[in-house]
């Protein structure tokens, strides 16, 4: 059968394919055909056809980027030939140091016993939310009941903390007699300084 002569080119599918590439490289999760069509402001059928183009372009052996159809939709992944390189990229050597914010938060919780985020913020002079979340995620501190007064969640150090710092128990922490003889006095001292600093 003879195909009709086309004088006008159709909307170039290639441009739609490029738009899909752009969407997939920005996405944090796989994208469905419906999502791609909505974002590209185009027909789902045309998106399916363009996806075939993209899949061909981004396939094993042709590119380091490979288009993959997974449960939630479509996503880019690394080619299998680059598996070793990717493994090296993600197997990072052990981190040497904690950030200043994390270190201060950890020291406060270790020396003063269970503290809430407001307690820590009061001593540090700045909100402690992200430092606390970070330390919880690393397993160095954990929730330990609630404040008697405000009901805020309190945190204590974990056995992992003791292992990382080479301590058998918290009683082995270096003494701070120059700051205060016990946790309560140290806390008072830190509060006094924090107030002076913010004044």
């Amino acid at each position: 059968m003879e195909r009709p002569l086309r004088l006008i080119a159709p909307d170039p599918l290639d441009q739609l394919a490029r738009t899909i590439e752009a969407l997939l490289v920005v996405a944090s999760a796989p994208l469905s055909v419906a999502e791609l069509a909505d974002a590209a402001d185009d027909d789902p059928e045309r998106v399916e056809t363009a996806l075939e183009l993209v899949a061909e372009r981004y396939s094993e052996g042709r590119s380091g980027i490979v288009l993959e159809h997974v449960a939630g939709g479509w996503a880019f992944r690394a080619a299998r030939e680059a598996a070793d390189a990717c493994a090296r990229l993600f197997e990072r050597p052990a981190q040497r140091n904690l950030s200043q914010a994390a270190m201060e938060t950890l020291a406060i919780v270790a020396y003063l016993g269970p503290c809430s985020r407001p307690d820590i913020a009061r001593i540090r002079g700045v909100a402690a939310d992200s430092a606390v979340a970070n330390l919880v995620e690393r397993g160095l501190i954990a929730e330990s009941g609630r404040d008697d007064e405000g009901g805020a969640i309190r945190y204590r150090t974990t056995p992992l903390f003791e292992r990382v710092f080479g301590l058998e128990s918290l009683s082995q922490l270096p003494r701070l007699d120059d700051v205060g003889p016990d946790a309560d006095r140290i806390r008072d001292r830190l509060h006094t300084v924090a107030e002076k600093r913010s004044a």
Partner: protein
Amino acid sequence: MIVRELALDLDAFEGPFDLLLTLVLKEELDLREVDIAAIVLAFLERLAERDELDLEACGEFLVLVSALLELKARGLFPEEAAELAELEPEVAAEELARRLAEYRRMKEAAAWLRERLEEEGDRFFRLGPAPLAPKPEVQLAPQQPEKLAQVIRLLAADPPQVSLAHMALRFPPVSQFLDRFRAVLRRRSRFDFDAEVEGLSRVEQAVAFLALLDLRRSGEIALEQAAPFAPIRVARLEEIRNRDERTPSWNARSA
């Protein structure tokens, strides 16, 4: 409100506040010929067009206007014992010039960043891990417990006494004047603004005036001024509306 875009129509100058500052900095405009009161009026007019008191803009405006006033006062009255009197004159001059220039540079930097952000608005990239990437586990190397003690010692160290004596521009909080005026109004139904702020520094007077505007906006007071530059009379609004004792809700709001 963007203070530097404030349109000015003065005898000596017409254009945005920003340009005026530039010309003054470049000495292409003699500050002695600039009517600073008119700049303040222009700002207050713009401020009055809005429902809310834009404290951000007020702070910015105060910094710039008090710096201009300072410069002008020094040019006009070199003998005058200004509020910088207790400072070494060279120190004050140095500080003032440095701050003016630094503030101005940072405004430019902020403008550049904003422009850049707009140009880069069509650059989209992924934040965070890729959908099918492996999740890395970061392990922490062994740590010295002494570091924990050091951190606490640092937090427990006395901060040095920060001297503000070298600061030419100091801003008392607006709330201080709100409290003060409310206290006066509890005793008297009217007072004279000029008499009340007499003896205060220019900056304090400016902040006191902001407090006055805030009280008017919240409907607590009425302001009267017979003519430009005539004394400002402040009256308790409740007093005008009804001569009875204040209601408890009024007390609560003014507390």
